[in-house]
């Protein structure tokens, strides 16, 4: 690493104690609508390098945390409402809606908790977005949605919400094993001019401040996540892109084999935490 890049990287972690946004107390519990308790701390899987799995919710300020504790205060729910309408809207040459095959959206319960997973039909690793688009193009005869289009992100929020509270439980063995290994490789690979890997921030330095921001473990159990920064729901791969870009690297594309494998590996690092979607973060 060049001297300058190193200085910048160290500077980023050193600036820590300045004006740190107060994070909530460590014992905070996430109870949504006064009744649904989320698992925000979990024992790690045996292979995990983390001593304890911590939801990103724990790293936010009390004010931000509160936005997720009531579905009428969580701005992500306007997107869920929008997806409810789309769910029963017939589209495409088949004139079918999601509801025509799947019935109530509640039938999607459990789906998000195991995504991404290997598609048994073709042996590929598929994310929720890929399954949705496959339905649209193959069964509905409709146009596929852009990865970060409002319609897609809203629909992933609606489907993920059906699994809210269930522990993330992605498979990493069997057919998934090679994808998981590939994702792990990426997780520990330093990228960009700053030569930072995912692990440098989210494994080695979670809990520290990166300038004004409180670093989390980079868990993805809350996705899609409503970010205060851009005031909309954000997909997992869009977030990956932001992180990689901030290391000053060329990024992979949404839906690329690299990000799909990385999604599996990062999801597995949160196996045991609740699906929180749509969550609210900085």
């Amino acid at each position: 690493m060049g001297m300058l890049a190193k200085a910048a990287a160290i500077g980023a972690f050193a600036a820590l104690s300045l004006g740190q946004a107060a994070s909530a107390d460590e014992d905070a519990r996430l109870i949504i609508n006064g009744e649904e308790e989320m698992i925000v701390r979990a024992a790690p899987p045996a292979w995990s390098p983390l001593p304890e799995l911590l939801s990103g919710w724990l790293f936010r300020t009390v004010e931000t945390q509160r936005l997720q504790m009531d579905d009428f205060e969580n701005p992500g729910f306007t997107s869920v409402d929008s997806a409810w309408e789309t769910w029963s809207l017939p589209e495409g040459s088949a004139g079918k809606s999601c509801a025509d095959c799947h019935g109530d959206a509640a039938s999607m319960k459990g789906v998000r908790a195991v995504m991404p997973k290997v598609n048994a039909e073709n042996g590929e690793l598929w994310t929720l977005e890929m399954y949705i688009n496959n339905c649209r193009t193959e069964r509905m005869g409709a146009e596929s949605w852009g990865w970060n289009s409002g319609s897609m992100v809203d629909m992933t929020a609606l489907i993920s919400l059906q699994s809210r509270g269930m522990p993330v439980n992605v498979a990493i063995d069997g057919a998934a094993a090679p994808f998981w290994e590939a994702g792990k490789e990426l997780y520990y690979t330093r990228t960009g001019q700053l030569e930072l890997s995912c692990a440098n921030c989210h494994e080695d330095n979670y809990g520290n401040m990166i300038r004004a921001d409180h670093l989390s473990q980079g868990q993805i159990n809350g996705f899609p996540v409503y970010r205060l920064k851009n005031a909309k729901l954000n997909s997992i791969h869009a977030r990956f892109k932001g992180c990689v870009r901030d290391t000053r690297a060329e990024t992979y594309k949404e839906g690329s084999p690299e990000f799909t494998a990385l999604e599996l590996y990062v999801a597995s690092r949160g196996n045991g935490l609740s699906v929180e979607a749509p969550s609210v973060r900085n």
Partner: protein
Amino acid sequence: MAQIKPRVKAPKSVAAGEVFTVKTLINHDMETGQRKDKNGDKIPRQIINMFEVTFNGKPVMSAKLEPSISANPYIEFEMSIQEAGDLAMTWRDDDGSVYEASNAIAIG
């Protein structure tokens, strides 16, 4: 922007005179008029500029909103009622659009 639609949480029934909370949220970019697009042209202001609440037709509260209100405006307020009736809410957009929601509240 997706279709603009408000979300409202209000109790279905309350005791006469009991103070209760109403939470409202509407999806809207609240474009400030301060930003420029990729060509350097100013993006015109377009916000929800007014939120009005009536109960059985009588004004309960209103909020004149400025561009300093966050995207997807959230407004929460407290009120009480003496009789059952209809809580009606209106959001007014700079472009002339009006978005409405109403909730029936019983005394019980």
